[in-house]
Structure formats: structure tokens, C-alpha cells
């Protein structure tokens, strides 16, 4: 039995007209390039086909993947899909492959031209990277689309964000790859740069597809525990830490770097979760109701991920500080983190509390935008202005000096966290606390 969601998309995306038009238009474009470069057409054709792949498959396909769920919410067909008997995997894969099938149709044609014309020996590796990159961005866009739909967003956008990420993060990486033949040092071993890039993109694409599936599980009311998220954070910590580990490192040093990497990753993950999750206040009330009735497993299933991630960050803060034991580590990443794990954690707690403060309003509006504005003010504007006015002591009260005076930073960040948490708790009690009735 064919995946119903994929079949529906095939009906919508692959009309006879479109099936003929895509190769027709591409043939005209490549024909024009050939006509303009008759003497040496191979390289221009290869460049054009790669650029067209980026435009069709990566940009256009990603926009379609990002809109796959949101368009259904907007068209009021999503409830029908959620009521269907289609399981999360077929729904995820049907959406990912189905929404982008026409883009892939054009992209594969471009890739065939690229492979046929490129004079580069590494053309298959470049093709592999482009394909893996496209899959990664499309899957990320689908993740963004599902997350946005869960928050009630009905306008298009997550796909555009994914494309922005491509140009801001992926672009420089690809440029570095093409201009640098040096191997990558990761987990103490040297890896051929192109192979490393391809494997990285492919593995993260697989994680992104898995992430889309886990979000789809939630959307389709399939019960899931948050182990996949923890597994991803630990994987990411391992990946990041790998760059700071040398072959000569002792086991204890590898462990320490890994703890520090996990701390950095889990702290960094708190912020996108606060922005993306349907977190407060009803979700928190729901969890508290579950706990009150003794449904602990269900409470864990329905809990937002940011508190769990913050708890994980606290654990790795503790581990990092314990194993550091006052020693200065050799790895740069670890050395930096060793100085200031606790104030970093406390500031993350403060920032989460600021998010919650806005969320716990009686009629919460523009929570994310307001909280982000406050972050910009607290981390950027006010310290910058105070430093510009030579009021360094005051600036240190707003943005604690993690690197210079860790003890002082802990005290300042602790006061920040305490005040923010107290304010959030006060607002929660006023508007949302569960009272005996």
C-alpha cells in the first residue's frame, strides 16, 4: 500500500504539464549556456547546474518543506490529517518527500548534468554534499514548520529561516571546504575534509528527519518520552567536543572536554527551545495536573523540553566543575568553560525565567519578541553603553565578567537568576497557580 500522504503530494505536485515543463526549461537554460560557451562548455555547464540545483532543490525545495504542514493548517486540512490513521513515520516521510518531489525532480536533472560535465575529480563528493545539504535543510525546514504549526503560526516562514541558515552557516563552510585542502582534526584523528563534510551533513540530515518524526509524533498524539532529544544533545556534545580533542589527550582530559562540550551544547539548546516550544503557561499547568494525579510518565511525555535541557546543563555544570578541580585544561574550549560554567548556567536560568515572566501574563502576547528584546538589552545594549561611558563596575553588574572574575560573576548572575525566578513565580501564582477548588 503506497504511503497515502506521498500519493496525495504526487497528485498535487507531478502533473503531466509540470513533468514536461521542468526538463524543457532546464534544457533551454543548458542549451543557452552551451551556445554561449561552445569552445569549452563543460565547466560553465557544471557551474550552472550546481547553481540551479541550489536554487531549485535547496532554496525552493526547502521553502516547500517548511510550508508542508503550515499550508495545511492555513488551508484547514491539518485536523483531517491528524485524525487520519497514517502513522508518524509515513506522515513525516510522505510530507518530506512529497512536498519536495518536484524540486527533487528538477534537482536530480541538474545533478546529472553536473556529474556529466564537471571536470573536477571531486565532483561526486560535491554532488553528495549538495544532496545531503539539501536533505538536511529540507528536514530542518519541516521541523520548523511542524514546531510553528504547534504554536499556531499559519504564515509561511520556517523554510525561509532554514535558507537563511544555509547562507549564514553552510555557505562559509562550503567556501572553506573549496579553498582548504587541509584535513579536519576530530576526535584525535585526521579526516579528509570533503569526506568529513559529507558525513557530517548526512548524519545531521538523518537527525533532522528523526527530529521531524518525533515532532510529528507529538502532533499526531503519539506518546513519546524525551529520550531522543537527550540522545541528540549528547551526540551533538560529542560532535562539538571532537574538535577540541587531540590524539595525545589522556582519557580524563577527553572526559572533561566532553563534559564541557555537553554543558555548552545543552545551555545553547535552551534558547531555541524557549522560542520554539509550546511551553507556557498551559503546558506547565498540564504537567502539574499530571503530577498531582500521580501520572509521572505522562507528565514527562507532555513536559516542554527546555526545563529538561536546563537540568541537563546543570548536571554538566556540576560535572565540569567537579572534574576541573581547579586545574587549567589544555583544550581551549574546556579552558574557557572551566572558568565560568556556573554563571553561564545561572544566566540561562535567569533568561528562562524572563521568558516565563512574559509567558505567565494573564493574556500572554508577543512573548518571544519581548523576551528576545530583553536579552538584547541585557547582553548587548546596556553593557555596551555603560562600558562606553567607562562605568565598568556598573556594566559588570548587568553582564557579569565570566572570564575575569568568576567568583564575582557567580554572585551577580545568582542575584539576576534569583530576581527573575522570583518574579516569574510571583506572576505564575497570581495568574496560573492550581488552587484547591
Amino acid at each position: 500500500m503506497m504511503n497515502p500522504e506521498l500519493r496525495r503530494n504526487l497528485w498535487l505536485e507531478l502533473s503531466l504539464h509540470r513533468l514536461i515543463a521542468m526538463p524543457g526549461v532546464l534544457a533551454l537554460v543548458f542549451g543557452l549556456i552551451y551556445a554561449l560557451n561552445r569552445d569549452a562548455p563543460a565547466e560553465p555547464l557544471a557551474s550552472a547546474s550546481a547553481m540551479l540545483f541550489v536554487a531549485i532543490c535547496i532554496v525552493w525545495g526547502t521553502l516547500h518543506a517548511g510550508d508542508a504542514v503550515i499550508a495545511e493548517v492555513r488551508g484547514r486540512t491539518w485536523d483531517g490529517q491528524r485524525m487520519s490513521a497514517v502513522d508518524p513515520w509515513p506522515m513525516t516521510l510522505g510530507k518530506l518527500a512529497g512536498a519536495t518531489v518536484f524540486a527533487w525532480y528538477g534537482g536530480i536533472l541538474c545533478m546529472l548534468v553536473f556529474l556529466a560535465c564537471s571536470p573536477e575529480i571531486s565532483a561526486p563528493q560535491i554532488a553528495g554534499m549538495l544532496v545531503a545539504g539539501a536533505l538536511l535543510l529540507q528536514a530542518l525546514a519541516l521541523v520548523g514548520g511542524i514546531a510553528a504549526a504547534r504554536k499556531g503560526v499559519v504564515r509561511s516562514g520556517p523554510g525561509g529561516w532554514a535558507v537563511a541558515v544555509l547562507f549564514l552557516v553552510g555557505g562559509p563552510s562550503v567556501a572553506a571546504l573549496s579553498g582548504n585542502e587541509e584535513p579536519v582534526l576530530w576526535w584525535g584523528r585526521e579526516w579528509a575534509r570533503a569526506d568529513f563534510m559529507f558525513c557530517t551533513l548526512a548524519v545531521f540530515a538523518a537527525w533532522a528527519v528523526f527530529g521531524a518524526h518525533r515532532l510529528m509524533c507529538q502532533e499526531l498524539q503519539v506518546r513519546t518520552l524525551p529520550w531522543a532529544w537527550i540522545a541528540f544533545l549528547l551526540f551533538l556534545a560529542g560532535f562539538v567536543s571532537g574538535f577540541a580533542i587531540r590524539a595525545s589527550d589522556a582519557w580524563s582530559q577527553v572526559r572533561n572536554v566532553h563534559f564541557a562540550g555537553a554543558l555548552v551544547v545543552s545551555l545553547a539548546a535552551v534558547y531555541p527551545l524557549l522560542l520554539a516550544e509550546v511551553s507556557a503557561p498551559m503546558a506547565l499547568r498540564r504537567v502539574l495536573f499530571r503530577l498531582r494525579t500521580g501520572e509521572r510518565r505522562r507528565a514527562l511525555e507532555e513536559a516542554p523540553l527546555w526545563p529538561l535541557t536546563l537540568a541537563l546543563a546543570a548536571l554538566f555544570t556540576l560535572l565540569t566543575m567537579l572534574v576541573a578541580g581547579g586545574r587549567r585544561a589544555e583544550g581551549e574550549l574546556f579552558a574557557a568553560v572551566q572558568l565560568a560554567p556556573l554563571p553561564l548556567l545561572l544566566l540561562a536560568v535567569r533568561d528562562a525565567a524572563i521568558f516565563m515572566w512574559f509567558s505567565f501574563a494573564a493574556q500572554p502576547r508577543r512573548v518571544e519578541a519581548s523576551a528576545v528584546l530583553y536579552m538584547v538589552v541585557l547582553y548587548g545594549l546596556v553593557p555596551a553603553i555603560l562600558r562606553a561611558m567607562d562605568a565598568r563596575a556598573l556594566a559588570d553588574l548587568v553582564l557579569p565578567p565570566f572570564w575575569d572574575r568568576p567568583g564575582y560573576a557567580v554572585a551577580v548572575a545568582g542575584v539576576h537568576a534569583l530576581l527573575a525566578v522570583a518574579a516569574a513565580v510571583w506572576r505564575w501564582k497570581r495568574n496560573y497557580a492550581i488552587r484547591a477548588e
Partner: protein
Amino acid sequence: MPHPHPAAVVASGVLFEYPGVRALDEVSFEVPAGSVTALVGPNGAGKTTLLRCLAGLERPMLGSIHVAGVDVLEEPRAVHRRVGFLSDFFGLYDALSVARCFAHAAAAHGVADADIDGAVQRTAQRMGLAGLLERRAAELSRGQRQRVAIGQALIHAPQVLMLDEPASGLDPEARHALARLFTQLREEGITLIVSSHILAELDEYSTHMLVMRHGRIVENRALEGAVAGLARVRLAFAQAVEALEAKLAALPGVRVLRAEADAAVLELHGGAEAQAALLRALVQAGLPLSEFALERENLHESYLRTVGAAPS
């Protein structure tokens, strides 16, 4: 009296909240299998939220819901196979033909590939859309789109069908056709829960009434005439009858609901035969009977009476 049918829906202590609003306040009720329940109440009473919780689209914070014998909170996907749901603001895949809309709905609800064509044809016939199968959904009228949406919710032969404001925006003819369809579905044994503001329309086919207000169930009962063998009979006499109430009360199987000098309303147990026997007894008793009519309580009146009696 035990209910003749097992419950198709059992909700217990269901609580659901939006920021600042308790949409469902520990709601408990049962819906008998094979019934058509009119879910009524003012705007904001919680009807739509309740339907979405029953359909497994929203997860309540507390409570339990069983639909067609399946725990909605534990196995929502299993419930989706047994339930059809039509939202008040539904959408269709406008670029698809009606046939493909139905075929997708059937496949998505687990109908086997070999059975899909048959299901599409049957549903199109039932919904009066057989002549429009190749028409794109975008080209259909409001009433036709409504029928496609209901057909999609029905195509997998659900045991329970929930519809939120299914007649809104329909012309009187389409509404009448919808009422006929619901009556037919009920006769086929499907349990229906229909939320609507148009009480006159619900009156045509509903057997039960579930009244909500401020997130609570104000009343849940069978409508008179829906309980097997129970009928209300209105009598009128050509002239005043002395001790009319006592004379009527003496008749077998009769309960006097209201009696005046020349008119009365009785509740009668038994079907058509009991009604014939009553008529015979009245004539034999020499009462100057001028009118004998079955009376069914109007849903609108019943609703207003219920709401009027409920604390605000």
C-alpha cells in the same frame, strides 16, 4: 431504567483550559450508541473544545474519555480509525478532484487499496456527489464542499461521527438533505454528535440533547419521543369534562402531565397499539374527544427550559 444501548462515548471528569479560561470544567457524560446527540449551548460554552477532545485532537488536562470502547488518551490513533470528525472550519484540497479527495481520505483512514474505489463510489452516491467526482474541490459550491467534507469523515465507516456546526452556511434545501442523511446514518447504527446553533435543524433528527454552559454539562437526556415506547399525546375535547384529570388518570398505561377542563397532555407507554387502545378507551368512556395528537417537545423549547433552569 437501564439504557437499552451501551454508551458509544463515556467522558469522566474532563478538564481543559486555555489561558485564563477553563473551557471544560470536569465534564462527565455518556452518549448512547446509535443515538444522535445534539450538542447545544451558547458561544464559548466549550462545545468545540469538547468535540476536539472526544476526537483525540486535543488532550485534556484531567479526566478520561472512551469512544467506541477505546481510551482516547491512551490510544488516540486507534480512536481515529473508529471516529469521523468534521470541524466547523474545515478545508479541502482544492486542487484535487472530488474522487481523489475521497480516495485520499479512505487511504489515510486505513481503507485497503482494493476497497478504495468501492468506498469512493459508495460515499459519492450517499452524498449525492456521483456526478461531480471529476470536478476539482475548488470549483464546488459551499453545500457541495460541505458534502465532500462529510463524505471524507464518513468514508471509513466510523462508529461515531462528530460534526461541529455542519449546517452553517447551507441553504434550506441542503440543510434538509443533511438532516435526511443524519437520520439515515442513525438508522445504520452510527452514533452522531452534532453541535449546532440552529436548533430547529437539530430537532429534525436528534434523539438526545447535551446542553453545555460555561464549560459544564447542564443537561444530558433523551428527547421525549426518543425513548422507546414513550409518547406524549395532546387531547382536546368539544366541551368541558367534569373531573377530567381523574378520568384520564384511571386509564391504563397513562400519566397525566397537564389537564384543564377541555384539554390535556398525557404521557403514554407503549407504541402505536397503545395509542389505538387509548383512543378506543376515550371514545368508549363517552368523552367528547375532538383532537388526538402526538406531541413532541420542541428542541428549542426544551433547550430554553433547560438553560432557564440552570444557574447562570
